[in-house]
């Protein structure tokens, strides 16, 4: 008995709850060399900006225990090339496109949202509020609920009605739950959490920061308990708001952990670097775990950790 893997994220129904996370799946082309990307619930694109962007100098990455710290600086071709080249390609391969946007202010975010209608193949807009990789030092959108709300309000106002807008939050926002509340009040249809946490590695030879950018973002399995905690606490505070959970998902069991904590879908980020087939492997493992437990619909486990012992689905 195959469990029903469909999941809902606000207005959007995904074939299954396993997504690729923004900035960790290239344009989709790179993963398509390893599996059929139409099999994924969705692919979040690398955050796109209005203009092309060269990003940060190398070194951009350093390995840390069960994770890494990175500072890419949102290198990308800009919205023009994205709309003419990357998005059509993704759609042509049957990929469901969650388009992540990044801007320097509410106006830029809104302008991006305006150019991303459903007709272009946009299934969802994800508002990257909190990329420690971006060039500026401040992270006002991510750290100050009122600033985050301004951006979300602008995007929701500019985006097409049928396109859900999800706000993406960092785990080291002063109070992720507060921030989540502010975003939802400002019109976010759901939340993506978490983005990387600020961190750094020191080069053991030079004793200088290992990344050219100094401080970068920590990601990978190392941050999973932090991410699961954010999802759990947000679900507690905002039980009706759909959440895409991410942060170190490596196995089907990890995906299940996020679902139980309250996520309706999960996204796989850093682990794609370690295992280019990770997304489909995780989907298969999750499906097997649900089968073993006798779960009929994946939706039945969403939020299970919040139910009293004994009320857990399956056996």
């Amino acid at each position, binding site marked *: 008995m195959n469990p029903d893997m469909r999941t809902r994220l606000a207005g959007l129904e995904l074939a299954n709850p396993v997504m690729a996370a923004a*900035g*960790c*799946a*290239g344009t989709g*082309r*790179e*993963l*398509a*060399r*390893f*599996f*059929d990307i139409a099999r994924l619930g969705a692919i979040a694109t690398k955050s796109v900006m209005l*203009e*092309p*962007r*060269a*990003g*940060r*100098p*190398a*070194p*951009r*990455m350093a*390995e840390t*225990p*069960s*994770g*890494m710290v*990175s500072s*890419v600086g949102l*290198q*990308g*071709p*800009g919205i*023009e*090339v994205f709309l*003419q*080249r990357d998005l059509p390609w993704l759609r042509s391969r049957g990929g469901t496109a969650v388009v992540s946007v990044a801007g320097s202010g509410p106006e830029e975010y809104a302008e991006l949202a305006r150019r991303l209608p459903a007709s272009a193949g946009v299934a969802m807009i994800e508002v990257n509020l909190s990329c420690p990789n971006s*060039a500026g030092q401040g992270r006002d959108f991510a750290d100050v609920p009122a600033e985050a709300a301004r951006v979300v309000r602008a995007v929701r106002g500019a985006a097409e009605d049928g396109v859900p807008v999800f706000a993406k939050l960092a785990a080291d926002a002063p109070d992720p739950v507060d921030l989540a509340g502010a975003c939802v009040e400002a019109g976010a249809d759901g939340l993506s959490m978490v983005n990387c946490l600020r961190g750094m590695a020191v080069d053991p030879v030079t004793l200088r920061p290992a990344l*050219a950018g100094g401080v970068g973002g920590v990601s*990978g*399995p190392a941050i999973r308990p932090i991410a699961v905690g954010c999802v759990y606490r947000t679900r507690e505070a905002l039980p009706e708001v759909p959440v895409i959970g991410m942060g170190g998902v490596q196995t089907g069991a990890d995906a299940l952990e996020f679902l139980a904590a309250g996520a309706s879908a999960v996204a796989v980020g*850093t*682990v*794609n*670097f*370690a*295992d*280019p*087939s990770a997304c489909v492997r995780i989907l298969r493992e999750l499906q097997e775990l649900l089968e073993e437990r006798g779960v009929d619909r994946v939706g039945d486990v969403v939020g299970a950790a919040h139910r009293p012992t004994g009320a857990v689905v399956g056996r």
Partner: protein
Amino acid sequence: MSDNGPVQTRSPVLTVRRVDAYHAITVVAPQIAERFRSGQFLSVGVGGEHSSMLLRRPFAIHDVKPDYGGTVEFLFAVRGPGTAWLAERRSRDLLDVVGPLGRPFPLPRDPVNCVLVGGGSGAAPLFPLAHALRRRGCRVDFVLGASSADRVFSAISARRIAETATFTTDDGSFGVRGRVTDALERVTADARADVVYACGPMAMLGRVAAAAARLELPAQVAVEEAMACGTGLCMSCVVPVVGEDGFTRMARACVDGPVFRGERVRFDDVGTIPFDALGAPGWKAWSDEPGAEGAPEREAG
């Protein structure tokens, strides 16, 4: 998916050998062997199933053989925890291998004269290249450099394959004391070289590319930029490369390279974002924006 794209395999280790300062691991990986073209690399997961080392380690493919359906060999120096772990593998252990990765060396259509320049372990991909060139009737001459004698790579097979093989070491413990570029002009002249191929540390490649330019020879260089994924996903391996449209872009060494045309790589600007690179802060101020359609992502080579 695509038939000549990379594959991910759990490959049994056939042999682990010491070769001077290097370790050589041969794995059974028919699909990688079959797809391989010289200049490509593979990547290996290290530390076992519950490893805290998340990132794959990239290695040039040094040899491919038809045994057991297809085997692939890579050579490496122990450098950090990942290579230390690899050096402890025994035959029959399974390795998580992805390959072949990256763009191969372009091969000449005609039987031209080729000088192959390698530094340290960077010489590895030049051996399958030499064989491929010889099969096309090319003349091959080697210039191999290293810090010391035990780091000179496969001197014997270099002598066997090539018309001539010249060695340089920093300390003079083997061959000529000095750098590969010190020998390059003489070797290219003697061999009447038509093209230079090179692989090794970035600084060496820069010098080789500059020397080739001076000698008015085309150069194909394979770079070894630090890589987190090797599959084009993470954007960690970027080098500034000039595209056909004249614009500099931050190209990914793993998928846009590792092989680039020597004069296209801005070696002096490696480790920076050149001020005139596409999307660098303020790049618009000085440049005509390239057309969106015309902007090739794979501008390299």
